[in-house]
C-alpha cells in the first residue's frame, strides 16, 4: 500500500481528504505511483504531469523520506519506507515566494 499526500487544491479537485492509499504492484517508482494515482482519479490527469509530454509540471515537487525526487527520472525506485507504506510520497506545490 502506497500512501500519497496531495496538495490541498488537488485534494479538493479529486474530492478526497487525508492521504490517498494506492495498490501499486512490484517495486514502486514515481511513474508507477503517478500512473496508479491518475487511474484512480482521472481528474488529476494533467495537473501533476503534462498530458501530452508526461513531464512533471514545473511547479510541482515530489518529496519522500526527506529527499527531493522531483528531478529524478520517472523510473526511479521510491525508498523502501514508501514501498512499505511507512512513509508517504508527498506531492507538493512549489512555494510561491514573495
Amino acid at each position, binding site marked *: 500500500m502506497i500512501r500519497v499526500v496531495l496538495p490541498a487544491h488537488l485534494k479538493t479537485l479529486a474530492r478526497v481528504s487525508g492521504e490517498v492509499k494506492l495498490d501499486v504492484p512490484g517495486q514502486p517508482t514515481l511513474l508507477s505511483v503517478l500512473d496508479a494515482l491518475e487511474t484512480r482519479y482521472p*481528474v488529476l*490527469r*494533467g*495537473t501533476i504531469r503534462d*498530458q*501530452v509530454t508526461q513531464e512533471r509540471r514545473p*511547479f*510541482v515537487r515530489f518529496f519522500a523520506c526527506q529527499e527531493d525526487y522531483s528531478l529524478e527520472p520517472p523510473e526511479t525506485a521510491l525508498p523502501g519506507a514508501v514501498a512499505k507504506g511507512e512513509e508517504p510520497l508527498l506531492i507538493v*506545490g*512549489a512555494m510561491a515566494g514573495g
Partner: protein
Amino acid sequence: MSGVRLLVGTKKGAFILTSDGKRERWDVSGPHFAGWEIYHVKGSPADPNRLYASQTSGWFGQIIQRSNDGGKTWEAVGNKFAYEGVPGTHKWYDGTQHPWEFKRVWHLEPTLKDPDTVYAGVEDAAMFRSTDGAQTWQELPALRNAKGDLWQPGAGGMGLHTILLDPSNSKRIFIAISAAGAFRTDDGGETWRPINKGLKSPYELPDPTAEVGHCVHRIAMHGSRPSVLFMQKHWDVLRSDNAGESWHEVSGNLPTDFGFPIDVHAHEPETIYVVPIKSDSEHYPPEGKLRVYRSRTGGNEWEALTNGLPQRDCYVNVLRDAMAIDSLDSCGVYFGTTGGQVYGSADAGDHWSAIVRDLPAVYSVEVQTLQ
C-alpha cells in the same frame, strides 16, 4: 419571472451573481473553485443551465468545469488540449522560432444551438472544439496556418481571447488573438485568413499596417447585423461594415482610445460601450475617474457615463472579457474591475451601482438573461 445571472471569473475563483429583472438586489454564490484562476465562465445559449468554466493554475495547469444546473454543482471534464500533429513554431521574443506550448484556456464559447458543442480559445494561440460537452477537445489547426509563424507573444501572452459566432451563418466565425490580430473562417474552421486591413499600429509594429501582429484586445458584434464589427485595439477603437474586410477608426472624442473591452447594446446595434484606459504603461482610467463611454452612433461621438461610478482616486483596470450586456427590455450593462468590483447598470449605462465591491481581481464577466 425574468432575471439575470452574472458569471464572474476572478483571480481566486468564480462567483455567480443572480437577480430578478429589476436588478436591484443580488445574491452572491462563491467562490467556486476557490484559489484557482478562473479565466472565463460562459453559459450555453441553447441551455442556460449548461455552463462551462476555465479553471487554471500556475502550479496545476488547466481544468475545465461543466455545470448542468446553472452553477449549483460542477464536474471536471476534459482538459487535454493537444495541438494537432507536429505543433510547429511561432515567433519568439528574441525573433527566433519557438514551439507552440499549451498554457491555458482564455475563453470558452458554447455554440448557439448545441449545448454540447463548445469552442475554446487558448494560449499559445489556437482554437479547439468539443462536440461532447467538453469531454474531449480537437484543435482547428488551420487557424495557425494563417501566418502563425509570424505571431509573436506580447507581454500578456499570446492568447486567443475572442470568439464570435455569426448567428446567420454557422460556418462563419470571427476570432481575435493578442499580438496577432483578428481572423475569420467562412467554412467552419477549415480555412482562416487575417482580417486586419485598416488597422494601424505604429507604436507596436515596425510595419504599422502589417497583415498580422496587431494587438487586438476585443471585437464585438450585434447578432442582428453580424457583418458589422466593433474593435477595441491596443490603441484605437475601430469598426468594420463588411465582416472585417476593412476597418476604420471611430475613436472620435474619447479621452484615450486605449482600452480592453467593447460591447454592443442588446437592442440598438449602433450603441456601443468602451472603458477608456489611460495608456498601455498605465493600466488605469484617465484622471482616476472610472468612466464608461457610450456611442449611440456606432462610434466617433462618445458620451461619458459616470453616474454611480467613482470619479476620483480610482486606479483599477477593466480587462477584455470583463464586460457583458443582458437582453432585458431595459438593457443591462455590467463590468468587473481588477480591484474586485462588479458594476451594473439596469438602464443601458445611465446609472451604475456596485453589485459587489471586494472580490478578487475580476478577469471576466458574462451575463445570462433568464426567462
